[in-house]
């Protein structure tokens, strides 16, 4: 197993950056998720690590060994492709055996290794079928088996669940996570699905427009987003972001309500050099506490029962909609006025000009 280090790795197509210079250290045995909307450079980054794509600058180190200009076959990595990339003319068994046979391994050992990995993924019964006769989930299991069978130093996965049905996805997600825990193999996993990223990653690398926006654990990127992009992108729905003005005693929301702010935040906001006190207030739906006598006013715009809880859509005085979680049995007539408070520990502030989070 191995650690992976990227130093100033970049990729340009002509004058356009697909990936701007990027530094990242992936620890041995870590599960890293590259997350971002399509076209953000996450797949390009993964392909550069694999060697399928050449870097235009920077260095890639595997266990301290410079592999920047090595062929994919010399890097000791396995790659799981989004559309499986199985050899369509071979049986599942031959697909899995391919990397071993390519290395010239003895027939008996190939048979034994394929048997082992097939048992691990519970695909022994489909080994004689060709990929075309398999379901999407089974094709992905065969692709995973082909990656696992060689016991590589690291696994690179490019949206491995992207081509699967929603119902399969949950199962396969758990299987991949379990495999990772069992193998303890360094894994770099690309996805555009933030729920998948939160569920699987030890750490998440959020990319947008060829730039890394934030690197952190799922908790970090959820509770302390580094900028407005991350705040919007992570969470379903994303963080509520409301334009506000800093005043003595708190921040004034559009429409006149004043949200009180803790002393710690007041100092931070005063020292952050905001232009005319304009700030973006951010809070997660679960920070909303609807109660009589709350400091903030809104009208109920809609409410969705999600089974375990109710998602309230509240309209502020200026027409902006925010989302708040409420108890499952909360009864709020549409259009009725409600008052709410914000959990002071869960308030975050962003500079509207730089879009960056203001450190507390």
């Amino acid at each position, binding site marked *: 197993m191995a650690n992976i280090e990227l130093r100033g790795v970049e990729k340009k197509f002509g004058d356009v950056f697909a990936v701007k210079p990027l530094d990242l250290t992936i620890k041995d045995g870590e599960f890293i998720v590259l997350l971002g909307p399509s076209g953000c450079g996450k797949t390009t980054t993964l392909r550069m690590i694999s060697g399928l794509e050449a870097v235009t600058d920077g260095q890639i180190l595997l266990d301290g060994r410079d592999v920047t200009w090595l062929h994919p076959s010399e890097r000791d990595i396995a790659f799981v492709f989004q559309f499986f990339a199985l050899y369509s003319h*071979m049986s599942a068994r031959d697909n899995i055996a391919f990397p071993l046979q*390519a290395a010239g391994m003895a027939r008996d050992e190939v048979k034994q290794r394929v048997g082992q990995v097939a048992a691990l993924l519970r695909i022994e019964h489909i080994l004689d079928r060709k990929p075309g006769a398999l379901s999407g989930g089974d094709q992905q299991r065969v692709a995973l088996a082909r990656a696992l069978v060689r016991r590589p130093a690291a696994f690179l996965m490019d949206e491995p669940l992207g081509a699967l049905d929603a119902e399969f996805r949950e199962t396969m997600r758990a299987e991949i996570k379990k495999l990772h825990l069992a193998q303890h193999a360094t894994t770099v996993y690309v996805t555009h699905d933030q729920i998948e990223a939160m569920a699987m990653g030890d750490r998440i690398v959020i990319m947008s427009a060829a730039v890394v926006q934030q690197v952190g654990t799922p908790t970090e990127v959820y509770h302390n987003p580094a900028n407005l992009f991350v705040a919007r992108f992570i969470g379903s729905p994303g963080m509520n972001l409301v334009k506000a003005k800093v005043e003595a005693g708190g921040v004034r929301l559009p429409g006149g309500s004043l949200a009180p702010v803790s002393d710690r935040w007041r100092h931070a906001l005063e020292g952050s050099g905001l232009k005319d006190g304009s700030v973006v207030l951010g809070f997660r739906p679960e920070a909303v506490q609807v109660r009589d006598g709350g400091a903030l006013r809104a009208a109920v715009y809609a409410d969705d029962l999600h089974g375990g809880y109710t998602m309230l859509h509240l309209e502020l005085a200026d027409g902006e909609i925010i989302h708040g979680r409420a108890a499952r049995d909360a009864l709020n007539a549409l259009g009725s006025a409600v008052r709410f408070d914000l959990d002071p520990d869960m308030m975050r502030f962003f500079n509207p000009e730089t879009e960056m989070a203001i450190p507390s």
Partner: protein
Amino acid sequence: MRYVNSSNVKGRPVSQVNAQRGLSSRQETVPPAGRRQLSDMRIVQLFILPTIILLILMNIFPLIYSLFLSFTNYSVISSDPPVWVGLENYTHILSDPDFWHNFATTGTYALLSVSLQTIVGFALAMLLRSKFTGSGIITTLVLVPMMLSPIVVAVFWRLIFNPSFGILNPILGFTDINTSPEWLGDPALALWAIVIVDVWQWSPFVMLLCLAGLSAIPEYLYEAAAIDRASAWFQFRRITLPQVMPLLLIAVLFRTIEAFKQFDLVQGLTFGGPGDATETVSVELYRLAFQGQFETGLSSALAYIVLVVIIAISNLYIRALNRLREG
């Protein structure tokens, strides 16, 4: 005919309106009394009929009639009606060593020319597979021999092979006319000469089908193979070759059928000579049927034997092809 008039007022003839609306809507818009109606089925039949008549007259009737003639002693130049002789023509052909020599010549020729043009065609396809500057033009130029008439090709190559002024021998380094090979005059070389010309003319066909097969192999298979640490040779053997195999087999099937029918190149280059060194079955067939003897019954029997051989070989290929598909 009010509809037609009103259409014409708008400046569009009714037929054009109908064409734009398609056949089915025409029946709704045109009153049935106004024109003769043809159902779709009737139109289909009318279009197919001429082809069917032509096929029956030119192919199916001769096919069946020649089968009948192959069991008779008929000759087109005699005034005698065909007399039924049973299997006599067939036993005559199959027990005559001269005919067996023709079969052997044809088989050798087919084996040599098909295997050589398969190798050359596949190699050309591998070379022209990747795009480079001028690869389009080169591909087109390589295809030119295929578009020439075999008789023209034969005449060209007779000049090229000519021992006194042909260009091939000097290129190969033979400058002395007395010792340089006589390609078409030497019984040991004549068959090879025909093979060379056929390979020159038809390798592009194999190349074309192989190129189609190669370009259909998805790039990601090679990416996966690179990740799986497969060497170039291993990739060729385990990915490229099996993926191209179905189209390659089709190319080989077509060329094999053509090789067994080889007539025009032989006729144009050697007339079956020297002696009977290049006398393929088709050339012998032509002589039997149309030169001197006009042995229509016997030649029909020979033609049927060739047909059966070709069908048998085609079946082998088609079985191999089906095995590839089913896996």
